[in-house]
């Protein structure tokens, strides 16, 4: 419903874009105020990427990095495998293939002839072994995330890497060599040392790191990339824009060619703008209310009827429209579309909630109303969502006392000491395209992010699902787990937010990924 | 009215009025002043503070800002040129070059952050268009003339490095730098101690005689006026109540206020038991001037006429006139006193 105001600006934008387009095509691209460097003779081969958030952190796959850095690492390094989002499968990449001779052994065949950047030789199985060893030596975060099942590993010849597991692990391709599959060159890492390597990483991906100055990272084309003719861009300039609306306005003004995470409010309007292409793909993430079940035993929310009442009181469609402006899909469970074991987004709870049922459940639980402290981090859209949710639950007598915290304090309360908070609203991006990465960590009583919820039956189901590798049986287990969570409501899911990216009409070759920290820029190019 | 005795006056003022529009009403600071200043002569203007002495000077220099000030007169002629109606640009060319002024407080009259040399040569460069070099030499010569030792290397000094007396000398040097035909000294020695006062008075007398500059010496100190002036005009409540040659006025005071002033000033040749007679009461409000003699409320010698009609100007001698009905001849003293 673009108001006439925006139509006006659209018309103006298109004329400006048109001028710019003509100017850049003829190589005289220095339009007043547009930040585009002069175009090269044979059409532009430079892209300016408007990144969300503050400055980008370290760029080494073996040191914990944030999502923004993940995007850059994804373009400097090519991983052992690559997810195919359309088919929801894991495809061979640096690993030509892998075999599973017995449930505890996996043998991975490494692709031959792939060169490291800046002349550091060829990628071999030794590099893979070295990378795993670095993770274990530096006790990196991956040890607990991607390699908990790894017993031992060794190379077998120049191009075969063999891993022995402590127990069968069906999600080996997606997680152990998927999320944990970013390999670093042994020669370069030994020469520079861990810290220096993180400042100038040497990878095998389509782009090399040229410079990091202030909040701007410049990636240059990797001349000896193993896929000939790629990437099409000579340079990708990545600039951080903390403010979402300013980031979008910079795109509209032509100072930036491509951006992610626009303000959801502007998505419908920019989608209608003919000069730009908008991809709004359902994301592998969810917003959820989290109850601290390991503490505050006297609080009413420990009764699952109250939690169900809260879930019934939530109007998920209102959240989708008011907070995400339509760029989301309502959900009440933790397996989003495109994941193994996904059935429906909404299995039990109605889209607009059911106030009568909620009140009935509260009466059943014998709870008239209570006050609870609900904390939220510094993501402004989540804070608005919490205000909306607070209004919804107040209809059944529950008063959410909102405590908005900075991300440091928030994570500290949530991750590290588990006692000092009662309830919270957060969103989470799922790291690997396998239900194990979401369901196990959150719902298993020993899961790394468990909230004190422990249900032995659920634990058993999760362990079985992890052990088998046959997708059909794993899906069956996850169905039962989800049904149980719908009953227990240890977590109340609201929506799967879309992951949105917008780029100038002249660009093509994007492949929208539902994950926030993956952006494939190897095939991006300016149309001829 | 003081008629000039034959010589052409260098400055003549006819019926000068200066009013200030304040929130409380219109203050008539100067209520119709007329006088002539003869070349090379020193005219003293005497009166209590608030009697309009300084405002008269500032009005002549066209330095009164309007609004709130408002200066009107029949005529103000300087060296034959009527400077009453001239525009600001012409007025600016006259100030400092044809008519200059020295102020009361030497401590504050010089710019603390500019060197003496700069403040001296400014007027020279502005009015005479001298080159820096020539201006410097002229400045050194001027400082020598006003008695500042080692003038050459004092140019670079700042005002706070000079004593009060020295600063007043610099002020005089600045005023006389362009050889003006009229110098107005507004309480020039009031802020100085007595010994320095005498030096400054001698300096002004000597310089004005050499240069032939006419001087208006504004002061409330009768002793200083007696020492330097040729003729005197006594001002009260914005009007000249009596004027004439200095000796005439001191010995044959013909206005109640002049008599009162003389009565309240100690004299060297007084016999001991003569008690000083202060003038009691306060100066009148200048808001709505009364047609009668302004000094009436405080005058000891008021006669019947004073309360009926405003005193007209009458001549007591050929160049000595007053605006007072009372006959004060009994108070005159022998001229040899």
């Amino acid at each position, binding site marked *: 419903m673009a*108001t006439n*105001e*925006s139509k006006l*600006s659209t018309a103006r934008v298109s004329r400006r874009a048109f001028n710019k387009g003509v100017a850049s095509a003829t190589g005289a691209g220095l339009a007043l105020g547009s930040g585009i460097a002069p175009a090269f003779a044979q059409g532009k081969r430079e892209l300016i990427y408007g990144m969300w958030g503050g400055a980008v952190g370290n760029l080494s796959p073996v040191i914990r990095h944030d999502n923004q850095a993940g995007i850059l690492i994804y373009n400097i390094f090519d991983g052992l495998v690559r997810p195919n989002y359309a088919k929801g499968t894991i495809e061979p990449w640096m690993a030509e293939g892998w075999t599973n001779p017995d449930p505890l052994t996996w043998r991975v065949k490494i692709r031959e002839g792939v060169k490291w950047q800046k002349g550091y030789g060829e990628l071999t199985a030794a590099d893979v072994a070295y990378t795993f060893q670095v993770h274990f030596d530096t006790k990196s975060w991956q040890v607990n995330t991607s390699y908990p099942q790894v017993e031992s590993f060794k190379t077998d010849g120049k191009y075969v890497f063999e891993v022995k597991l402590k127990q069968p692990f069906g999600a080996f391709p997606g997680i152990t060599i998927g999320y944990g599959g970013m390999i670093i060159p042994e020669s370069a890492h030994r020469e520079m040392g861990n810290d220096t390597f993180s400042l100038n990483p040497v990878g095998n991906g389509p782009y090399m790191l040229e410079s990091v100055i202030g909040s701007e990272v410049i990636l240059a084309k990797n001349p000896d990339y193993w896929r000939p003719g790629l990437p099409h861009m000579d340079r990708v300039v990545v600039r951080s824009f903390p403010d*979402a*609306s300013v980031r979008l306005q910079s795109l509209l003004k032509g100072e930036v060619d491509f951006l992610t995470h626009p*303000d959801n*409010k502007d998505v419908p309007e920019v989608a209608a703008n003919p000069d730009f292409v908008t991809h709004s793909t359902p994301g592998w993430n969810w917003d959820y209310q989290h109850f601290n079940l390991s503490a505050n035993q006297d609080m009413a929310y420990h009764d699952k009827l109250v939690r169900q009442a809260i879930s019934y009181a939530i109007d998920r469609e*209102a959240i989708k429209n*008011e907070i995400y402006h339509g760029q989301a899909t309502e959900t009440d469970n933790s397996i989003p579309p495109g994941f193994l074991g996904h059935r429906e987004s909404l299995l039990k709870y109605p889209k607009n909630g059911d106030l009568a049922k909620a009140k009935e459940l509260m009466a059943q639980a014998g709870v008239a109303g209570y006050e609870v402290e609900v904390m939220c981090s*510094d993501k*402004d859209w989540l*804070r*608005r969502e*919490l*205000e*909306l949710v*607070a*209004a919804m639950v107040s209809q059944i007598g529950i008063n959410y006392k*909102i*405590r*908005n*915290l*900075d991300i*440091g*304090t928030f994570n500290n309360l949530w991750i590290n000491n588990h006692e000092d908070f009662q309830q919270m609203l957060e969103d989470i991006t799922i790291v690997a395209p396998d239900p194990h990465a979401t369901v196990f960590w959150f719902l298993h009583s020993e899961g790394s992010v468990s909230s004190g919820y422990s249900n032995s039956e659920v634990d058993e189901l999760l362990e079985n699902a992890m052990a088998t590798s046959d997708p059909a049986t794993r899906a069956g287990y996850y169905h039962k787990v989800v049904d149980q969570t719908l009953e227990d409501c240890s977590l109340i899911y609201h929506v799967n937010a879309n992951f949105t990216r917008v780029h100038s009409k002249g660009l093509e070759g994007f492949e929208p990924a539902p994950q926030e920290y993956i952006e494939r820029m190897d095939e991006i190019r300016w149309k001829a | 009215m003081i008629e000039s005795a034959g010589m052409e006056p260098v400055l003549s003022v006819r019926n000068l009025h200066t009013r*200030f529009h*304040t929130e*409380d*009403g219109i*203050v008539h*600071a100067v209520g119709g002043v007329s006088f002539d200043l003869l070349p090379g002569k020193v005219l003293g203007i005497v009166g209590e503070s*608030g009697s309009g002495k300084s*405002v008269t000077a*500032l009005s002549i220099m066209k*330095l*009164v*800002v309007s609004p*709130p*000030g408002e200066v009107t007169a029949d005529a103000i002629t300087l060296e034959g040129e009527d400077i009453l109606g001239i525009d600001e640009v012409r007025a600016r060319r006259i100030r400092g070059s044809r008519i200059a002024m020295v102020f009361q407080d030497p401590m504050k009259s010089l710019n603390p952050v500019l060197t003496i040399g700069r403040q001296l040569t400014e007027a020279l460069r502005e009015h005479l268009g001298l080159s820096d070099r020539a201006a410097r030499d002229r400045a050194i010569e001027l400082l020598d003339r006003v008695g500042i030792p080692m003038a050459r290397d004092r140019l670079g000094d700042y005002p706070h490095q000079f004593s009060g007396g020295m600063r007043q000398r610099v002020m005089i040097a600045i005023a006389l730098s362009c050889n003006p035909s009229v110098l107005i000294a507004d309480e020039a020695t009031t802020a100085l101690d007595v010994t320095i006062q005498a030096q400054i008075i001698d300096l002004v007398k000597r310089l004005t005689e050499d240069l032939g500059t006419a001087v208006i010496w504004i002061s409330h100190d009768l002793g200083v006026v007696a020492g330097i002036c040729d003729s005197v005009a006594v001002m009260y409540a914005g009007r000249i109540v009596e004027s004439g040659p200095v000796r005439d006025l001191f010995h044959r005071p013909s206005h109640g206020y002049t008599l009162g002033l003389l009565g309240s000033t100690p004299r060297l040749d007084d016999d001991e038991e003569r008690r000083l007679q202060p003038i*009691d*009461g*306060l*100066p*009148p*409000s*200048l*808001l*709505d001037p*009364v047609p009668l003699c302004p000094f*009436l*409320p*405080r*005058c*000891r010698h*008021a006669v019947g006429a004073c309360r009926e009609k405003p005193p007209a100007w009458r001549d007591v001698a050929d160049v000595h006139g007053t605006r007072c009905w009372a006959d004060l001849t009994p108070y005159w003293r022998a001229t040899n006193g």
Partner: protein
Amino acid sequence: MSTPPLHIGAGDPSAPPAYRGGAFLACQQFMRNHAALAGFFILLLLGFAAVLAPWISPYDPTALKLSEKLLPPSFSHWMGTDYFGRDVMTRIVWGGRVSLSVAFLVVFYSLLVGVPIGLVSGFVGGRLDNALMRMMDAFLTFPPLLLAVAIVGLLGPDLENVVIALGIVQIPVFARIVRGSTLSAREEVYIVAARALGASAARVVFSGILRNIVSPIVVQITIVFAGAIIAEASLSFLGLGSQPPDPSWGRDLSEARRYMGDAPWLIIGPILACMLCVLSINFVGDGLRDSLDPRSWRAKTTGGSTPRVPEQVTP
């Protein structure tokens, strides 16, 4: 034979010049300053609006009504409604409670701590003065917003901590001003005279010096008051200010920035409130500074000194 003093044209001579205390003359002077008067009434209005908010506001500031989302200003909603359908005008009135109370407390605390430090170090001088001033320098070097972030992070985001965070940075400002004025006041003859008369150091400091440095302090109060309101807004913009659901100008302003194109009234409301408040504070400050300076008191013409030629005659 002296004639009785006859006051001609000087008003009613029989009314003896009543002695009027300094406070009265200060008020009289303040009344003359129209801008200050206007500022004072606006502040009074804002104060009442903030205090009486629950009774006078037509709508509930926090209740959501999605059906009335983003309505332009109309008769029913003077300043339109925001993205949750809440009335902007009501939220501004309620927001005033937060912003004004934060500003008031910041001024109060920084005065409470800053002025004594300034007085002591100005009056005592020597090594204590140097030590205190170096400590104040240390406080001054803290980047204000960062200190606020750390403190709000440390003590949690409720209002008191925002006040502490903003107050700490203002303490040295007051201290330095008071010290400066005390140093100059200490040299004044009337202070030396008071001490010569055997006045105790405390009496000299509090009655002598403090009374005479009131006006620079008052001016600084208005600056700090206005600065606090804006700092609270900046903190909210960075996500650290007051907590929902109680509205605050800063938070509403930062939330409104997303709708600048579609609903500009969302951003104009808080800005106007901010500016109106700060403008009136400044005018009151200027008015106070002039009226507290005895030199500018002018007694009416009944009695008192004759109206003199205005001070500044030349251009």
